[in-house]
Protein backbone atom coordinates (compact mmCIF):
# COMPACT_ATOMS: atom_id res chain seq x y z
CA UNK A 1 0.00 0.00 0.00
CA UNK A 2 2.66 2.48 1.10
CA UNK A 3 4.85 1.25 -1.71
CA UNK A 4 2.05 1.89 -4.20
CA UNK A 5 1.46 5.38 -2.91
CA UNK A 6 5.15 6.23 -2.95
CA UNK A 7 5.38 5.05 -6.52
CA UNK A 8 2.40 7.20 -7.47
CA UNK A 9 3.92 10.15 -5.65
CA UNK A 10 7.15 9.64 -7.56
CA UNK A 11 5.11 9.94 -10.75
CA UNK A 12 3.12 12.92 -9.56
CA UNK A 13 6.04 15.13 -8.61
CA UNK A 14 7.63 15.23 -12.06
CA UNK A 15 4.14 15.80 -13.49
CA UNK A 16 3.68 18.82 -11.26
CA UNK A 17 7.15 20.05 -12.18
CA UNK A 18 6.22 19.83 -15.85
CA UNK A 19 2.90 21.55 -15.15
CA UNK A 20 4.73 24.45 -13.55
CA UNK A 21 7.18 24.69 -16.46
CA UNK A 22 4.30 24.56 -18.91
CA UNK A 23 2.47 27.37 -17.15
CA UNK A 24 5.58 29.44 -16.74
CA UNK A 25 6.39 28.77 -20.39
CA UNK A 26 3.06 30.31 -21.45
CA UNK A 27 4.68 33.68 -20.85
CA UNK A 28 7.15 32.91 -23.62
CA UNK A 29 4.26 32.75 -26.08
CA UNK A 30 3.62 36.46 -25.70
CA UNK A 31 4.90 38.16 -28.82
CA UNK A 32 7.56 40.74 -27.99
CA UNK A 33 8.67 42.14 -24.65
CA UNK A 34 6.48 40.77 -21.84
CA UNK A 35 6.95 43.87 -19.72
CA UNK A 36 5.58 46.09 -22.48
CA UNK A 37 2.62 43.79 -23.10
CA UNK A 38 1.91 43.39 -19.41
CA UNK A 39 2.08 47.13 -18.88
CA UNK A 40 -1.11 47.52 -20.88
CA UNK A 41 -2.06 50.40 -23.09
CA UNK A 42 -0.60 53.26 -21.05
CA UNK A 43 2.98 52.00 -21.51
CA UNK A 44 4.05 53.91 -18.42
CA UNK A 45 7.89 53.62 -18.29
CA UNK A 46 7.78 53.38 -14.49
CA UNK A 47 5.37 50.43 -14.70
CA UNK A 48 7.51 48.76 -17.35
CA UNK A 49 10.62 49.16 -15.23
CA UNK A 50 8.77 47.82 -12.18
CA UNK A 51 7.58 44.79 -14.17
CA UNK A 52 11.08 44.18 -15.54
CA UNK A 53 12.39 44.02 -12.05
CA UNK A 54 9.52 42.05 -10.59
CA UNK A 55 9.58 39.44 -13.34
CA UNK A 56 13.41 39.42 -13.44
CA UNK A 57 13.19 39.91 -17.17
CA UNK A 58 16.87 40.78 -17.47
CA UNK A 59 17.83 37.36 -16.16
CA UNK A 60 18.08 34.23 -18.31
CA UNK A 61 15.02 31.99 -18.60
CA UNK A 62 16.00 29.24 -16.14
CA UNK A 63 16.80 31.84 -13.47
CA UNK A 64 13.43 33.50 -14.03
CA UNK A 65 11.73 30.15 -13.70
CA UNK A 66 13.59 29.50 -10.46
CA UNK A 67 12.46 32.87 -9.07
CA UNK A 68 8.87 32.23 -10.12
CA UNK A 69 8.84 28.67 -8.79
CA UNK A 70 10.41 29.81 -5.52
CA UNK A 71 7.53 32.23 -5.14
CA UNK A 72 4.95 29.58 -5.97
CA UNK A 73 6.37 27.20 -3.38
CA UNK A 74 6.09 29.96 -0.78
CA UNK A 75 2.48 30.49 -1.80
CA UNK A 76 3.20 33.60 -3.84
CA UNK A 77 1.48 33.26 -7.20
CA UNK A 78 2.24 36.83 -8.18
CA UNK A 79 -0.16 39.72 -8.09
CA UNK A 80 -2.92 40.94 -10.33
CA UNK A 81 -1.73 43.70 -12.63
CA UNK A 82 -5.13 45.34 -12.45
CA UNK A 83 -6.00 45.32 -8.79
CA UNK A 84 -2.52 44.68 -7.34
CA UNK A 85 -4.15 41.95 -5.24
CA UNK A 86 -2.16 38.76 -4.63
CA UNK A 87 -3.36 36.09 -7.05
CA UNK A 88 -3.73 33.60 -4.21
CA UNK A 89 -6.22 35.92 -2.46
CA UNK A 90 -8.27 36.23 -5.64
CA UNK A 91 -8.33 32.46 -6.01
CA UNK A 92 -9.29 32.07 -2.37
CA UNK A 93 -12.17 34.51 -2.83
CA UNK A 94 -13.59 32.99 -6.00
CA UNK A 95 -12.97 29.30 -5.51
CA UNK A 96 -15.73 28.64 -2.91
CA UNK A 97 -18.37 29.92 -5.33
CA UNK A 98 -17.25 27.51 -8.02
CA UNK A 99 -16.88 24.68 -5.51
CA UNK A 100 -20.49 25.20 -4.46
CA UNK A 101 -21.55 25.01 -8.11
CA UNK A 102 -19.34 21.99 -8.71
CA UNK A 103 -20.68 20.11 -5.67
CA UNK A 104 -24.28 20.77 -6.67
CA UNK A 105 -23.50 19.79 -10.26
CA UNK A 106 -21.92 16.55 -9.10
CA UNK A 107 -24.98 15.66 -7.02
CA UNK A 108 -27.23 16.37 -10.00
CA UNK A 109 -24.98 14.32 -12.29
CA UNK A 110 -25.05 11.39 -9.84
CA UNK A 111 -28.82 11.64 -9.53
CA UNK A 112 -29.28 11.43 -13.29
CA UNK A 113 -26.31 9.35 -14.39
CA UNK A 114 -26.39 6.45 -11.94
CA UNK A 115 -30.08 5.52 -12.21
CA UNK A 116 -29.88 5.91 -15.99
CA UNK A 117 -26.82 3.64 -16.07
CA UNK A 118 -28.52 0.99 -13.91
CA UNK A 119 -31.65 1.03 -16.04
CA UNK A 120 -29.58 0.80 -19.22
CA UNK A 121 -27.52 -2.14 -17.94
CA UNK A 122 -30.46 -4.08 -16.51
CA UNK A 123 -32.53 -3.55 -19.61
CA UNK A 124 -29.62 -4.00 -21.98
CA UNK A 125 -30.70 -3.83 -25.60
CA UNK A 126 -34.21 -2.68 -24.70
CA UNK A 127 -35.97 0.60 -25.23
CA UNK A 128 -34.77 1.75 -21.80
CA UNK A 129 -31.17 1.20 -22.81
CA UNK A 130 -31.68 3.34 -25.91
CA UNK A 131 -33.38 6.06 -23.90
CA UNK A 132 -30.57 6.17 -21.34
CA UNK A 133 -28.02 6.26 -24.16
CA UNK A 134 -29.89 9.15 -25.70
CA UNK A 135 -29.74 11.01 -22.37
CA UNK A 136 -25.99 10.40 -22.24
CA UNK A 137 -25.44 11.58 -25.80
CA UNK A 138 -27.52 14.68 -25.14
CA UNK A 139 -25.42 15.48 -22.09
CA UNK A 140 -22.13 15.02 -23.93
CA UNK A 141 -23.16 16.86 -27.08
CA UNK A 142 -24.94 19.94 -25.73
CA UNK A 143 -22.75 23.02 -25.50
CA UNK A 144 -23.36 24.02 -21.90
CA UNK A 145 -23.41 27.75 -22.57
CA UNK A 146 -26.24 27.16 -25.06
CA UNK A 147 -28.19 25.04 -22.58
CA UNK A 148 -27.66 27.82 -20.04
CA UNK A 149 -29.07 30.44 -22.40
CA UNK A 150 -32.08 28.24 -23.20
CA UNK A 151 -32.76 27.66 -19.50
CA UNK A 152 -32.63 31.40 -18.84
CA UNK A 153 -35.08 31.85 -21.70
CA UNK A 154 -37.50 29.30 -20.23
CA UNK A 155 -37.18 29.72 -16.47
CA UNK A 156 -36.28 33.38 -16.18
CA UNK A 157 -37.75 35.14 -19.20
CA UNK A 158 -40.84 33.05 -19.93
CA UNK A 159 -41.79 31.64 -16.54
CA UNK A 160 -40.04 34.14 -14.30
CA UNK A 161 -39.26 31.47 -11.69
CA UNK A 162 -35.51 31.91 -11.32
CA UNK A 163 -33.08 34.82 -11.51
CA UNK A 164 -31.29 34.99 -14.87
CA UNK A 165 -27.96 35.97 -13.39
CA UNK A 166 -26.07 36.84 -10.25
CA UNK A 167 -25.01 34.92 -7.19
CA UNK A 168 -26.07 34.86 -3.56
CA UNK A 169 -23.90 33.17 -0.94
CA UNK A 170 -25.58 30.34 0.98
CA UNK A 171 -24.42 31.96 4.23
CA UNK A 172 -26.46 35.05 3.43
CA UNK A 173 -29.67 33.52 2.19
CA UNK A 174 -29.83 29.78 1.55
CA UNK A 175 -33.00 29.88 -0.53
CA UNK A 176 -31.83 32.72 -2.75
CA UNK A 177 -28.46 31.00 -3.06
CA UNK A 178 -30.08 27.81 -4.32
CA UNK A 179 -32.26 29.80 -6.73
CA UNK A 180 -29.21 31.56 -8.13
CA UNK A 181 -27.16 28.39 -8.56
CA UNK A 182 -29.64 25.67 -9.52
CA UNK A 183 -29.65 26.47 -13.25
CA UNK A 184 -25.87 26.70 -13.69
CA UNK A 185 -25.43 23.60 -11.52
CA UNK A 186 -27.89 21.69 -13.68
CA UNK A 187 -26.13 22.82 -16.84
CA UNK A 188 -22.80 21.63 -15.44
CA UNK A 189 -24.22 18.41 -14.04
CA UNK A 190 -25.96 17.57 -17.29
CA UNK A 191 -22.62 17.42 -19.06
CA UNK A 192 -21.22 14.89 -16.59
CA UNK A 193 -24.39 12.86 -16.14
CA UNK A 194 -23.83 11.32 -19.56
CA UNK A 195 -20.28 10.28 -18.72
CA UNK A 196 -21.38 8.83 -15.36
CA UNK A 197 -24.23 6.97 -17.06
CA UNK A 198 -21.80 5.30 -19.47
CA UNK A 199 -19.41 4.34 -16.67
CA UNK A 200 -22.30 2.98 -14.55
CA UNK A 201 -23.71 1.01 -17.45
CA UNK A 202 -20.46 -0.74 -18.31
CA UNK A 203 -19.55 -1.37 -14.66
CA UNK A 204 -23.02 -2.81 -13.97
CA UNK A 205 -22.85 -5.03 -17.06
CA UNK A 206 -19.55 -6.40 -15.86
CA UNK A 207 -20.78 -7.04 -12.32
CA UNK A 208 -24.10 -8.52 -13.41
CA UNK A 209 -22.32 -11.30 -15.27
CA UNK A 210 -20.39 -12.34 -12.14
CA UNK A 211 -21.04 -15.67 -10.47
CA UNK A 212 -22.05 -14.23 -7.14
CA UNK A 213 -24.96 -12.45 -8.81
CA UNK A 214 -26.19 -15.79 -10.14
CA UNK A 215 -25.78 -17.15 -6.61
CA UNK A 216 -27.76 -14.27 -5.15
CA UNK A 217 -30.51 -14.84 -7.69
CA UNK A 218 -30.59 -18.58 -7.11
CA UNK A 219 -31.01 -17.94 -3.38
CA UNK A 220 -34.38 -16.53 -4.40
CA UNK A 221 -33.63 -12.91 -3.56
CA UNK A 222 -35.77 -10.24 -5.09
CA UNK A 223 -34.32 -8.92 -8.33
CA UNK A 224 -34.38 -5.45 -6.79
CA UNK A 225 -32.21 -6.63 -3.90
CA UNK A 226 -29.80 -8.38 -6.22
CA UNK A 227 -29.35 -5.30 -8.36
CA UNK A 228 -29.36 -2.53 -5.80
CA UNK A 229 -27.55 -4.32 -2.98
CA UNK A 230 -25.31 -6.92 -4.55
CA UNK A 231 -24.48 -5.51 -7.94
CA UNK A 232 -24.63 -1.75 -7.51
CA UNK A 233 -22.37 -1.71 -4.48
CA UNK A 234 -19.55 -3.27 -6.45
CA UNK A 235 -20.22 -1.37 -9.62
CA UNK A 236 -20.19 2.01 -7.92
CA UNK A 237 -16.54 2.07 -6.87
CA UNK A 238 -15.07 2.59 -10.33
CA UNK A 239 -17.91 4.95 -11.18
CA UNK A 240 -17.21 7.24 -8.24
CA UNK A 241 -13.46 7.27 -8.81
CA UNK A 242 -13.81 7.87 -12.53
CA UNK A 243 -16.44 10.46 -11.74
CA UNK A 244 -14.04 12.31 -9.48
CA UNK A 245 -11.78 12.76 -12.47
CA UNK A 246 -14.56 14.72 -14.15
CA UNK A 247 -13.52 17.66 -12.00
CA UNK A 248 -11.62 18.92 -15.03
CA UNK A 249 -14.80 18.90 -17.11
CA UNK A 250 -16.59 20.67 -14.26
CA UNK A 251 -14.01 23.44 -14.05
CA UNK A 252 -13.87 23.83 -17.83
CA UNK A 253 -17.64 23.97 -17.89
CA UNK A 254 -17.70 26.43 -15.02
CA UNK A 255 -15.75 28.93 -17.11
CA UNK A 256 -18.57 29.10 -19.64
CA UNK A 257 -21.47 28.63 -17.26
CA UNK A 258 -20.30 31.37 -14.93
CA UNK A 259 -19.97 33.62 -17.94
CA UNK A 260 -23.56 32.90 -19.03
CA UNK A 261 -25.05 33.35 -15.56
CA UNK A 262 -22.69 36.16 -14.48
CA UNK A 263 -21.52 34.24 -11.44
CA UNK A 264 -18.40 35.69 -9.82
CA UNK A 265 -16.49 32.42 -9.48
CA UNK A 266 -13.27 30.81 -10.55
CA UNK A 267 -14.28 30.60 -14.21
CA UNK A 268 -15.24 34.25 -14.36
CA UNK A 269 -11.91 35.08 -12.73
CA UNK A 270 -9.92 33.48 -15.55
CA UNK A 271 -12.10 34.97 -18.31
CA UNK A 272 -11.88 38.48 -16.83
CA UNK A 273 -8.14 38.02 -16.40
CA UNK A 274 -7.79 37.01 -20.04
CA UNK A 275 -9.60 40.14 -21.16
CA UNK A 276 -7.70 42.41 -18.82
CA UNK A 277 -4.48 40.81 -20.07
CA UNK A 278 -3.83 39.99 -16.44
CA UNK A 279 -1.47 37.14 -17.24
CA UNK A 280 -0.31 36.42 -13.70
CA UNK A 281 -3.91 35.65 -12.74
CA UNK A 282 -4.34 33.35 -15.76
CA UNK A 283 -1.17 31.48 -14.81
CA UNK A 284 -2.21 31.28 -11.17
CA UNK A 285 -5.65 29.93 -11.98
CA UNK A 286 -4.29 27.26 -14.32
CA UNK A 287 -1.67 26.25 -11.77
CA UNK A 288 -4.20 25.91 -8.96
CA UNK A 289 -6.58 23.97 -11.20
CA UNK A 290 -3.91 21.55 -12.39
CA UNK A 291 -2.58 20.97 -8.89
CA UNK A 292 -6.08 20.33 -7.58
CA UNK A 293 -6.67 17.89 -10.40
CA UNK A 294 -3.45 15.98 -9.75
CA UNK A 295 -4.23 15.83 -6.02
CA UNK A 296 -7.74 14.62 -6.71
CA UNK A 297 -6.60 11.89 -9.08
CA UNK A 298 -4.15 10.76 -6.42
CA UNK A 299 -7.03 10.58 -3.94
CA UNK A 300 -9.20 8.77 -6.49
CA UNK A 301 -6.41 6.25 -7.02
CA UNK A 302 -6.18 5.75 -3.29
CA UNK A 303 -9.93 5.26 -2.99
CA UNK A 304 -9.87 2.79 -5.84
CA UNK A 305 -7.02 0.99 -4.19
CA UNK A 306 -8.79 0.86 -0.85
CA UNK A 307 -11.96 -0.49 -2.42
CA UNK A 308 -10.14 -3.12 -4.47
CA UNK A 309 -8.49 -5.68 -2.21
CA UNK A 310 -7.23 -7.46 -5.32
CA UNK A 311 -4.82 -4.60 -6.03
CA UNK A 312 -3.17 -5.06 -2.66
CA UNK A 313 -1.44 -8.27 -3.67
Amino acid sequence: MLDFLLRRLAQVLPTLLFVSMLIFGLQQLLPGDPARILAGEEQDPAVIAHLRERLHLDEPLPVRYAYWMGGVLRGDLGESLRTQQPVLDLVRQKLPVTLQLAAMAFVIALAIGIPAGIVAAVGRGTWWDSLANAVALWGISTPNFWLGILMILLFSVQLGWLPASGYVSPFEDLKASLASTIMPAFVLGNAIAGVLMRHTRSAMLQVLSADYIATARSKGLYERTVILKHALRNALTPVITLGALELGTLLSGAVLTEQVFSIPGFGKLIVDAVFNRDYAVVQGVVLVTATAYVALSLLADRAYFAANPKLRV
Partner: protein
Amino acid sequence: MRDAGPWHQAWRRLRRRRSAMLALAVVAVFVALALLAPWLSPQDPIATSWSAIRKPPSAAHWFGTDEIGRDVLSRVVWGSRASLLAGLVSVSIALLLGVPLGLLAGLLGGGVDAFISRLTDAFLACPFLILAIALAAFLGPSLSNAMVAIGISATPIFVRLTRAQVLNVKVEAYVEAARALGNPPWRIAWRHVLPNATAPLIVQATLAVAGAVIAEASLSFLGLGQQPPAPSWGSMLNAAKNYIDQAPWMAVWPGLAIFGLVLSFNLLGDGLRDALDPRQR
Protein backbone atom coordinates in the same frame (compact mmCIF):
# COMPACT_ATOMS: atom_id res chain seq x y z
CA MET B 1 -5.77 -0.75 -50.24
CA ARG B 2 -4.28 -4.18 -49.63
CA ASP B 3 -6.12 -4.99 -46.45
CA ALA B 4 -9.49 -4.06 -47.90
CA GLY B 5 -10.98 -7.08 -46.13
CA PRO B 6 -11.32 -5.84 -42.54
CA TRP B 7 -12.04 -2.26 -43.63
CA HIS B 8 -14.73 -3.45 -45.99
CA GLN B 9 -16.28 -5.50 -43.20
CA ALA B 10 -16.13 -2.53 -40.87
CA TRP B 11 -17.89 -0.35 -43.43
CA ARG B 12 -20.61 -2.99 -43.80
CA ARG B 13 -21.07 -3.08 -40.03
CA LEU B 14 -21.15 0.71 -39.90
CA ARG B 15 -23.74 0.86 -42.65
CA ARG B 16 -26.06 -1.34 -40.63
CA ARG B 17 -26.11 1.19 -37.80
CA ARG B 18 -28.87 3.61 -38.61
CA SER B 19 -27.81 6.27 -36.09
CA ALA B 20 -24.25 6.34 -37.44
CA MET B 21 -25.45 6.63 -41.03
CA LEU B 22 -27.83 9.42 -40.10
CA ALA B 23 -24.96 11.16 -38.34
CA LEU B 24 -22.77 10.76 -41.41
CA ALA B 25 -25.53 12.34 -43.50
CA VAL B 26 -25.78 15.31 -41.12
CA VAL B 27 -22.01 15.80 -41.21
CA ALA B 28 -22.17 15.67 -45.02
CA VAL B 29 -24.86 18.35 -45.01
CA PHE B 30 -22.71 20.61 -42.83
CA VAL B 31 -19.67 20.02 -45.04
CA ALA B 32 -21.79 20.93 -48.07
CA LEU B 33 -23.02 24.08 -46.29
CA ALA B 34 -19.45 25.08 -45.51
CA LEU B 35 -18.16 24.44 -49.03
CA LEU B 36 -21.13 25.98 -50.82
CA ALA B 37 -21.74 28.84 -48.37
CA PRO B 38 -21.30 31.60 -50.98
CA TRP B 39 -24.06 30.06 -53.10
CA LEU B 40 -26.33 28.62 -50.42
CA SER B 41 -26.39 31.55 -48.03
CA PRO B 42 -29.36 33.77 -48.90
CA GLN B 43 -27.62 36.99 -47.90
CA ASP B 44 -24.27 38.51 -47.10
CA PRO B 45 -23.43 37.25 -43.57
CA ILE B 46 -21.77 40.50 -42.52
CA ALA B 47 -24.06 43.00 -44.23
CA THR B 48 -25.77 45.08 -41.57
CA SER B 49 -29.16 46.68 -41.97
CA TRP B 50 -30.45 49.31 -39.58
CA SER B 51 -33.99 48.78 -40.83
CA ALA B 52 -33.96 45.10 -39.90
CA ILE B 53 -32.66 44.99 -36.34
CA ARG B 54 -33.65 41.93 -34.26
CA LYS B 55 -36.54 41.01 -36.58
CA PRO B 56 -38.19 37.67 -35.77
CA PRO B 57 -38.10 34.90 -38.37
CA SER B 58 -40.04 35.81 -41.51
CA ALA B 59 -40.15 34.97 -45.21
CA ALA B 60 -37.32 37.43 -45.87
CA HIS B 61 -35.20 36.19 -42.94
CA TRP B 62 -36.04 32.57 -42.14
CA PHE B 63 -34.01 32.55 -38.91
CA GLY B 64 -34.61 36.24 -38.12
CA THR B 65 -31.97 38.96 -37.85
CA ASP B 66 -29.44 39.88 -35.17
CA GLU B 67 -28.69 43.00 -33.13
CA ILE B 68 -27.28 44.91 -36.10
CA GLY B 69 -29.66 43.56 -38.73
CA ARG B 70 -27.59 40.72 -40.15
CA ASP B 71 -29.37 37.65 -41.49
CA VAL B 72 -29.06 34.85 -38.90
CA LEU B 73 -29.53 32.04 -41.45
CA SER B 74 -26.67 33.34 -43.59
CA ARG B 75 -24.48 33.62 -40.52
CA VAL B 76 -25.33 30.08 -39.44
CA VAL B 77 -24.46 28.81 -42.93
CA TRP B 78 -21.14 30.67 -43.01
CA GLY B 79 -20.46 29.80 -39.39
CA SER B 80 -20.23 26.13 -40.35
CA ARG B 81 -16.87 27.01 -41.94
CA ALA B 82 -15.26 28.13 -38.68
CA SER B 83 -16.63 25.11 -36.80
CA LEU B 84 -15.65 22.45 -39.32
CA LEU B 85 -12.30 24.06 -40.00
CA ALA B 86 -11.56 24.21 -36.27
CA GLY B 87 -12.65 20.58 -35.87
CA LEU B 88 -10.48 19.31 -38.71
CA VAL B 89 -7.41 21.50 -38.22
CA SER B 90 -7.14 21.09 -34.46
CA VAL B 91 -7.58 17.32 -34.60
CA SER B 92 -5.00 17.14 -37.40
CA ILE B 93 -2.57 19.09 -35.21
CA ALA B 94 -3.31 16.74 -32.31
CA LEU B 95 -2.74 13.68 -34.51
CA LEU B 96 0.45 15.03 -36.09
CA LEU B 97 1.92 15.81 -32.68
CA GLY B 98 0.41 13.00 -30.65
CA VAL B 99 0.93 9.93 -32.82
CA PRO B 100 4.71 10.34 -33.38
CA LEU B 101 5.21 11.13 -29.68
CA GLY B 102 3.17 8.07 -28.72
CA LEU B 103 5.15 5.89 -31.12
CA LEU B 104 8.42 7.20 -29.73
CA ALA B 105 7.36 6.64 -26.14
CA GLY B 106 6.04 3.16 -26.80
CA LEU B 107 8.86 1.93 -29.01
CA LEU B 108 11.86 3.42 -27.27
CA GLY B 109 10.68 2.99 -23.68
CA GLY B 110 13.01 3.91 -20.83
CA GLY B 111 13.87 7.54 -20.24
CA VAL B 112 12.20 8.80 -23.41
CA ASP B 113 8.96 7.07 -22.45
CA ALA B 114 9.12 8.42 -18.92
CA PHE B 115 9.75 11.95 -20.17
CA ILE B 116 6.95 11.91 -22.77
CA SER B 117 4.53 10.25 -20.36
CA ARG B 118 5.11 12.77 -17.57
CA LEU B 119 4.80 15.61 -20.06
CA THR B 120 1.52 14.10 -21.24
CA ASP B 121 0.34 13.81 -17.64
CA ALA B 122 1.19 17.48 -17.12
CA PHE B 123 -0.95 18.52 -20.07
CA LEU B 124 -3.75 16.21 -18.99
CA ALA B 125 -3.69 17.73 -15.51
CA CYS B 126 -4.84 21.06 -16.96
CA PRO B 127 -8.53 20.84 -17.84
CA PHE B 128 -8.92 20.83 -21.62
CA LEU B 129 -10.79 24.09 -22.04
CA ILE B 130 -8.86 25.97 -19.37
CA LEU B 131 -5.59 25.02 -21.06
CA ALA B 132 -7.02 26.07 -24.42
CA ILE B 133 -8.19 29.38 -22.93
CA ALA B 134 -4.79 30.04 -21.39
CA LEU B 135 -3.00 29.20 -24.65
CA ALA B 136 -5.41 31.29 -26.72
CA ALA B 137 -5.02 34.17 -24.26
CA PHE B 138 -1.25 34.19 -24.51
CA LEU B 139 -1.19 33.57 -28.27
CA GLY B 140 -3.74 36.30 -28.90
CA PRO B 141 -7.38 35.94 -29.92
CA SER B 142 -7.95 34.67 -33.46
CA LEU B 143 -9.48 31.62 -35.09
CA SER B 144 -6.12 30.18 -36.13
CA ASN B 145 -4.66 30.60 -32.64
CA ALA B 146 -7.78 29.01 -31.20
CA MET B 147 -7.24 26.03 -33.49
CA VAL B 148 -3.61 25.73 -32.39
CA ALA B 149 -4.66 26.01 -28.74
CA ILE B 150 -7.36 23.35 -29.13
CA GLY B 151 -5.01 21.10 -31.11
CA ILE B 152 -2.30 21.26 -28.47
CA SER B 153 -4.82 20.70 -25.68
CA ALA B 154 -6.17 17.62 -27.48
CA THR B 155 -2.73 16.11 -28.18
CA PRO B 156 -2.14 14.19 -24.90
CA ILE B 157 -5.05 11.81 -25.53
CA PHE B 158 -3.49 10.75 -28.81
CA VAL B 159 -0.06 10.31 -27.24
CA ARG B 160 -1.56 8.03 -24.61
CA LEU B 161 -3.69 6.08 -27.05
CA THR B 162 -0.85 5.51 -29.53
CA ARG B 163 1.55 4.55 -26.76
CA ALA B 164 -0.92 2.02 -25.34
CA GLN B 165 -1.47 0.48 -28.77
CA VAL B 166 2.28 0.25 -29.36
CA LEU B 167 2.78 -1.50 -26.02
CA ASN B 168 0.04 -3.95 -26.99
CA VAL B 169 1.53 -4.99 -30.30
CA LYS B 170 5.21 -4.57 -29.45
CA VAL B 171 5.30 -8.01 -27.86
CA GLU B 172 3.54 -9.75 -30.75
CA ALA B 173 5.53 -12.35 -32.64
CA TYR B 174 5.23 -10.59 -36.01
CA VAL B 175 6.87 -7.44 -34.66
CA GLU B 176 9.60 -9.57 -33.16
CA ALA B 177 9.99 -11.28 -36.55
CA ALA B 178 10.17 -7.96 -38.38
CA ARG B 179 12.88 -6.84 -35.99
CA ALA B 180 14.77 -10.12 -36.37
CA LEU B 181 14.76 -9.61 -40.14
CA GLY B 182 16.68 -6.41 -39.59
CA ASN B 183 13.99 -3.82 -40.30
CA PRO B 184 14.91 -0.37 -39.00
CA PRO B 185 12.77 0.89 -36.08
CA TRP B 186 10.96 3.55 -38.13
CA ARG B 187 9.91 0.92 -40.65
CA ILE B 188 8.61 -1.35 -37.89
CA ALA B 189 6.69 1.59 -36.47
CA TRP B 190 5.23 2.59 -39.81
CA ARG B 191 4.49 -0.78 -41.39
CA HIS B 192 3.81 -3.06 -38.45
CA VAL B 193 2.80 -1.07 -35.40
CA LEU B 194 0.84 1.90 -36.75
CA PRO B 195 -1.63 -0.09 -38.90
CA ASN B 196 -2.74 -1.87 -35.74
CA ALA B 197 -3.33 1.41 -33.99
CA THR B 198 -5.36 2.94 -36.81
CA ALA B 199 -8.80 1.72 -35.75
CA PRO B 200 -8.78 3.19 -32.22
CA LEU B 201 -7.13 6.34 -33.56
CA ILE B 202 -9.93 6.84 -36.09
CA VAL B 203 -12.53 6.43 -33.36
CA GLN B 204 -10.75 8.81 -31.02
CA ALA B 205 -10.16 11.34 -33.80
CA THR B 206 -13.86 11.38 -34.67
CA LEU B 207 -14.82 11.95 -31.05
CA ALA B 208 -12.07 14.58 -30.78
CA VAL B 209 -13.59 16.50 -33.69
CA ALA B 210 -16.80 16.71 -31.66
CA GLY B 211 -14.80 18.04 -28.72
CA ALA B 212 -12.92 20.50 -30.92
CA VAL B 213 -16.13 21.88 -32.42
CA ILE B 214 -17.49 22.54 -28.93
CA ALA B 215 -14.14 24.00 -27.88
CA GLU B 216 -14.03 26.38 -30.85
CA ALA B 217 -17.59 27.48 -30.12
CA SER B 218 -16.63 27.95 -26.46
CA LEU B 219 -13.54 30.02 -27.26
CA SER B 220 -15.49 32.11 -29.77
CA PHE B 221 -18.26 32.51 -27.20
CA LEU B 222 -15.66 33.92 -24.83
CA GLY B 223 -14.26 36.15 -27.58
CA LEU B 224 -11.04 34.15 -27.97
CA GLY B 225 -11.80 32.50 -31.30
CA GLN B 226 -13.25 33.83 -34.52
CA GLN B 227 -13.17 37.63 -34.34
CA PRO B 228 -16.14 39.81 -35.35
CA PRO B 229 -17.63 40.47 -37.78
CA ALA B 230 -16.72 37.04 -39.24
CA PRO B 231 -19.49 34.61 -38.32
CA SER B 232 -18.99 31.81 -35.83
CA TRP B 233 -21.69 29.95 -33.94
CA GLY B 234 -19.98 30.60 -30.63
CA SER B 235 -19.72 34.35 -31.05
CA MET B 236 -23.31 34.48 -32.33
CA LEU B 237 -24.41 32.90 -29.05
CA ASN B 238 -22.34 35.41 -27.13
CA ALA B 239 -24.26 38.25 -28.77
CA ALA B 240 -27.55 36.39 -28.40
CA LYS B 241 -27.05 36.11 -24.63
CA ASN B 242 -27.54 39.88 -24.30
CA TYR B 243 -30.85 39.92 -26.17
CA ILE B 244 -32.34 36.73 -24.79
CA ASP B 245 -35.56 38.42 -23.66
CA GLN B 246 -36.06 40.36 -26.90
CA ALA B 247 -34.67 38.13 -29.64
CA PRO B 248 -34.59 34.47 -28.56
CA TRP B 249 -34.23 33.27 -32.18
CA MET B 250 -30.70 34.66 -32.13
CA ALA B 251 -29.81 32.00 -29.55
CA VAL B 252 -31.77 29.06 -30.91
CA TRP B 253 -30.26 28.50 -34.37
CA PRO B 254 -26.50 28.74 -33.80
CA GLY B 255 -26.86 26.57 -30.69
CA LEU B 256 -28.88 24.01 -32.60
CA ALA B 257 -26.20 23.97 -35.29
CA ILE B 258 -23.42 23.30 -32.75
CA PHE B 259 -25.54 20.64 -31.06
CA GLY B 260 -26.36 18.94 -34.39
CA LEU B 261 -22.77 18.86 -35.60
CA VAL B 262 -21.32 17.72 -32.27
CA LEU B 263 -24.01 15.08 -31.78
CA SER B 264 -23.33 13.76 -35.28
CA PHE B 265 -19.60 13.42 -34.70
CA ASN B 266 -20.27 11.73 -31.36
CA LEU B 267 -22.75 9.28 -32.92
CA LEU B 268 -20.36 8.63 -35.78
CA GLY B 269 -17.54 7.99 -33.31
CA ASP B 270 -19.68 5.55 -31.34
CA GLY B 271 -20.74 3.83 -34.56
CA LEU B 272 -17.15 3.56 -35.74
CA ARG B 273 -16.11 2.12 -32.39
CA ASP B 274 -18.67 -0.64 -32.75
CA ALA B 275 -17.86 -1.22 -36.41
CA LEU B 276 -14.09 -1.25 -36.06
CA ASP B 277 -13.87 -3.15 -32.81
CA PRO B 278 -16.80 -5.51 -32.39
CA ARG B 279 -15.24 -6.95 -29.25
CA GLN B 280 -16.00 -3.79 -27.30
CA ARG B 281 -19.73 -4.33 -27.59
